[in-house]
């Protein structure tokens, strides 16, 4: 089991958050911190890359629910990419695909941002 970790990088003007390990009740607040910081810096084109994330709990999903509207209000979006099947299944189960763009690959998310603007 990998320990939870958040890495942040910038790719062509898009804020990319890489998640590692397990995002659960315990680690959810760290993701909240990252999103809050981006929002307060008015950085709103956010892609969360789940490639290295093994597990997500409801509390993790809740963080996305809590901040999506804030991000969209300042004209951006949170797009999600590179989920493994287990993680995607949880998102799907709770109805998230109706509210979020979820892509197989980060590049598709960037493309969507570019075509939307």
């Amino acid at each position, binding site marked *: 089991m990998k320990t939870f970790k958040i890495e942040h990088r910038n790719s062509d003007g898009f804020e990319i958050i890489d998640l590692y390990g397990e995002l659960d009740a315990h680690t959810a*607040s760290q993701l909240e911190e990252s999103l809050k910081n981006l929002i307060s810096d008015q950085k709103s084109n956010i892609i969360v890359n789940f490639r290295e994330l093994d597990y997500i709990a409801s509390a993790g999903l809740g963080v996305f629910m809590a901040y999506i509207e804030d991000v969209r209000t300042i004209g951006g979006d949170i797009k999600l990419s590179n989920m493994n099947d287990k993680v995607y299944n949880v998102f799907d189960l709770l*109805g998230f695909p109706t509210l979020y763009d979820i892509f197989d690959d980060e590049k598709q998310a960037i493309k969507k941002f570019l075509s939307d603007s």
Partner: protein
Amino acid sequence: MIAMGEEKNQSHSTFELKTVIETSRMLVESRDTDFVLNNLLLILMGRLLVTKAAIFIHDPVEETYTLRKKKGFDKLEEGAHYTFDLGPEKNKEPYFEVGSADKIKPENGADLQNCFLFNLRTSNNHHGYLLLGPKAIRTSFSREDLGFTESLCIISTAALVNSQLFTELTNTYRNLDRRIHELNTLFDLSKEFNLLVDREKISSIFKFALLGQLFIRTFFLIYKTGSKYTLLTSSGAVVKPTQKQINSIFLEADEDILVVDENLKNQHEWIKKSNITALISVTIQNERVALIGVGERVNKVPFSESDYNFLKSLANLAVISIQKTFFLEERIDKERMEEELSIAKAIQEGLLPDPIPEIPGIDLAAKTVSSREVGGDYFDIAEAPDGSTIFAIADVTGKGVPAALLMANLQSMLHVLLPVEITLSEATDRINNIIHKNTPSDKFITFFWAKYLSEHKILRYVNAGHNPPLLLRVDSDEFVELTDGGLLLGAMETFMPYVQTDIQLNPGDLLVCYTDGIDETMNKSFEEYGTERLKSCILENRAKSSAEIMDGIVDSVKRFSGNVFSDDLTLLVLKACD
């Protein structure tokens, strides 16, 4: 000719048989209702050269038919509900031509002339109808056409039932998956909450789990401590409520689950503005301790019974953990208080003379027993600059910390006045004025003090409302009560000087000063120990040393009360020696 015709017929039948077999294989493997229905239509239309066809699925609850799929039939609408008004017994036929008496309602002017209806059925149940339009080439359906269609209908109906079952199973499986996920969430959080003592963190994790699991954005949690209601956390569209609004919604929404209606919205403007759709009470051990408000689900799917159940379970977990943090804080406060009290006790003990000083010509013993950590009893023995000795005993009204503070105040005054050259009477006047000025009107001190002039063996005393010390002369069995002085301290400003009185002490004379903890101690039948018992105890022990007399009194009081002290008790015993 006949032979050729038979050959053609035969190859035709073979083709049909092949179609039926291929179709059946394809259909049976398919789990997609839409695919099954679409195929049925396309195969038939291609094979029979028909330009319009439609499939109606029976809804046994509503007794209507839903048009699930159609080609042609512009007047009919996919997804709309229809009823069939057919001639008697027709629904038992495998198929029949639509006659002028047969109606599909609402009619909408659909042309049903020369159309056929095929009963879609399995061996037990009727599932719907296939409506097949006339052939494009204007010939009527042959017997083979009808037989072929009937077979295909039977196979397709079986496949249809299969695919519906599969869809149902998939849904069930998905629901099960959701339940498992909910359980995991509960399990996860119960572990997490157990480790947490930070109320804000618990609230925030609870919030996120709820937002994620229920797919909502708007939420608040009001928590009740004592008779106070606090908004612990909120999210999404929640408008910050005033304390009054918090109180009123908590008191009003006293149902288990309250779905917000127009009436409630009109009464609670902020609930309306916050887009709250349901209010859920959390009850622990018959007490409503929290109220949770949730907004609608982002995908508009209404909350189910099981959603509410999940919410309540999660809320229970969170609220119990939040309660735990409050209990913990109370305990920490209590421990801090106890620690402070034990420090106060040490300070107070430091204010009493220890060891008891030796006074020439006097056998002296004194002690105080506190019923609490700190108390309001006081005694003192101090040497004045003129070589005389001051004895004092006092009792502050009330108990505990307030009494102890006043006692400390008295102690410092006494020591400040000690080197000042004034009479005992004047000193008492001053102390009374200061105590009166500095303390609330319901706080008093009963105070007895005396100055012993060893050269002349004179004891000069002032009694300010204290239990009269008992003087037992060496040659008498009668007690003299030392009552002279004045009012107790702090009651009012000194307007009549305190009276000081001298008594001569002869060797063997015994003086016992005590506080009301001695005479007012009660036994189990609520009788007071009283001064008579005290006097006989003193008489019994009069031959002994001061320390032994003192211990004798304490033991006697202890025995009388069954070792229960509700008040502080203090004794100061002095016996004149040769």
